[in-house]
C-alpha cells in the first residue's frame, strides 16, 4: 500500500469521504469532472463549467427575493365580508403567547433568517474567488457556517406547508395568493439549483 510513502506533499492531495472515511488521491481535476465515493456513493466532487458566476447571480437574486417578500402580502382570505391578509413575518410570528414565542423565533430563523444568512455567506465567499482575487477575510469561516446551516434552512418545507394550509382553507374561506407566495416559490427553485451547482471540493481548494 502507499502507506510508506506518505510525505506531506502526498497528504496534500488526499481527501477522505466525510461519511465513510475512505481515502482518495485527487490529482488533477478538470472542469466538468465528477466523483462519488466508491464505498458509500457520497458525491465528493461535481465541477461544472463556469458555475461560480451563475451561483453568485442566483444567490443575489434569491437574497433580494427573501427580503422583498417580507414586505409584500403572502395570502389573503375572505369569508362573510370579513377578510384578513398575512405576510410571511406574520405567519412566522403567529406563536405569540407565553412560551410559544420561542417557536415564533425559531420559525423566523428557519424560513427567513437562516436562508438569507446562507445566501449572504455564499456571495461573500464566492465573489472574490470567481474574480480571481484573494478570498475576503473570514471566508473559510463563512463557508464552513454556510455548509453547516444547510439542513436548518427550511424554505422549501415552508412552501409545501403553505400548499397544505391552502387545501385546509378552501372550504372555510376564499383564498387569494399574494406576490410574496410566488416569490417564495421561485426562491425555492433558485436555492435548490444554487446548492446543486456548488462544488464543495472546488470552493475549499480555492479558499486554501
Amino acid at each position, binding site marked *: 500500500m502507499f502507506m510508506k510513502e506518505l510525505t506531506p506533499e502526498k497528504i496534500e492531495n488526499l481527501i477522505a469521504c466525510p461519511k465513510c472515511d475512505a481515502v482518495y488521491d485527487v490529482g488533477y481535476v478538470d472542469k466538468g469532472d465528477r466523483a462519488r465515493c466508491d464505498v458509500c456513493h457520497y458525491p465528493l466532487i461535481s465541477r461544472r463549467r463556469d458555475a461560480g458566476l451563475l451561483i453568485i447571480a442566483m444567490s443575489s437574486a434569491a437574497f433580494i427575493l427573501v427580503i422583498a417578500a417580507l414586505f409584500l402580502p403572502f395570502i389573503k382570505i375572505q369569508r362573510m365580508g370579513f377578510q384578513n391578509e398575512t405576510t410571511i413575518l406574520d405567519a412566522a410570528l*403567529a406563536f405569540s403567547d407565553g412560551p410559544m414565542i420561542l417557536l415564533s423565533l425559531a420559525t423566523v430563523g428557519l424560513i427567513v433568517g437562516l436562508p438569507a444568512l446562507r445566501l449572504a455567506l455564499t456571495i461573500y465567499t464566492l465573489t472574490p474567488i470567481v474574480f480571481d482575487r484573494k478570498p475576503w477575510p473570514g471566508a473559510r469561516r463563512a463557508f*464552513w457556517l454556510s455548509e453547516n446551516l444547510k*439542513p436548518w434552512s427550511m424554505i422549501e418545507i415552508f412552501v409545501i406547508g403553505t400548499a397544505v394550509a391552502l387545501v385546509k*382553507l378552501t372550504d372555510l374561506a376564499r383564498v387569494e395568493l399574494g406576490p410574496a407566495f410566488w416569490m417564495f416559490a421561485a426562491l425555492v427553485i433558485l436555492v435548490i439549483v444554487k446548492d446543486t451547482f456548488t462544488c464543495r471540493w472546488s470552493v475549499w481548494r480555492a479558499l486554501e
Partner: protein
Amino acid sequence: MTVTAKDLGLVGCRTCEKVWPIGTERCGRCGARLISRDHKSLQRVWAWWIAGVLAYIPANTYPMLITTTLFRNQEDTIIAGAIELASYGAWGVAIIILVASVLIPLAKFFAIAYLALSVGHRTSITPFQRQVIFEVVEFIGRWSMIDVFVVAILSSLVQLSVVASINPGIAALAFALSVIFTMLSAKSFDSRLIWDKIEAEKQEAESAT
C-alpha cells in the same frame, strides 16, 4: 479493498474532506474540529434521541390547533385533525399530514436507535444499507416541520373576528422541539462508525493471512 484515513494514520475533516496526520486537533483549512472516530457521538445521539421521544408525547396528546367558528370551539390533536380532513374527503392532505407528523417521526426514532445500537455489532444488513438508512433519516427529518408551518400559516391567516379563528395549541411547540431534537440526534451520529470492521472480523482477517 478501500483504505480509510484511520488505516493510514490520518484523520479526515468532516466538513471540507481534507486529510491531516492523526492527532491534529483542528482542520487547518476550514477550522472544524478533527476526530478520527467520534465514540462519544453515541452518547450525544442518545441524549437528543431521548429528548426527542419525550417531546413527541405531549406533541400528540395536547391540541395542535384550536379552531373557533360561530357556534363551536374545537381543539384538535395532530391525529384528530388528520381524521377530520379525511372525513371531509381531503384524503391526500390527510395522508400527507399523517405521513409527515406520525409515520416519519416514529420511523426516525426506530432508525436512529437501530443505527446507534448496531455500531460495533454484526448485522444482517450491509454497512452500505445502514448508510442509506442514515442518509434517508438525515434527508427526511427536516420535512416533519411541515405541520408546524401549516399551523403557523393557519393561525396568522384565519383571524376573522367572530366568523372563524384558528390559534396554535401547545402541541405545536412540543412537536417542533421533537423534530429539532431528532435532527440534532441524527446530526450527532458519526456515520464512519458504520464502516469500521468489528474487532472479531479484523482478527479473523488477520489470522487468515
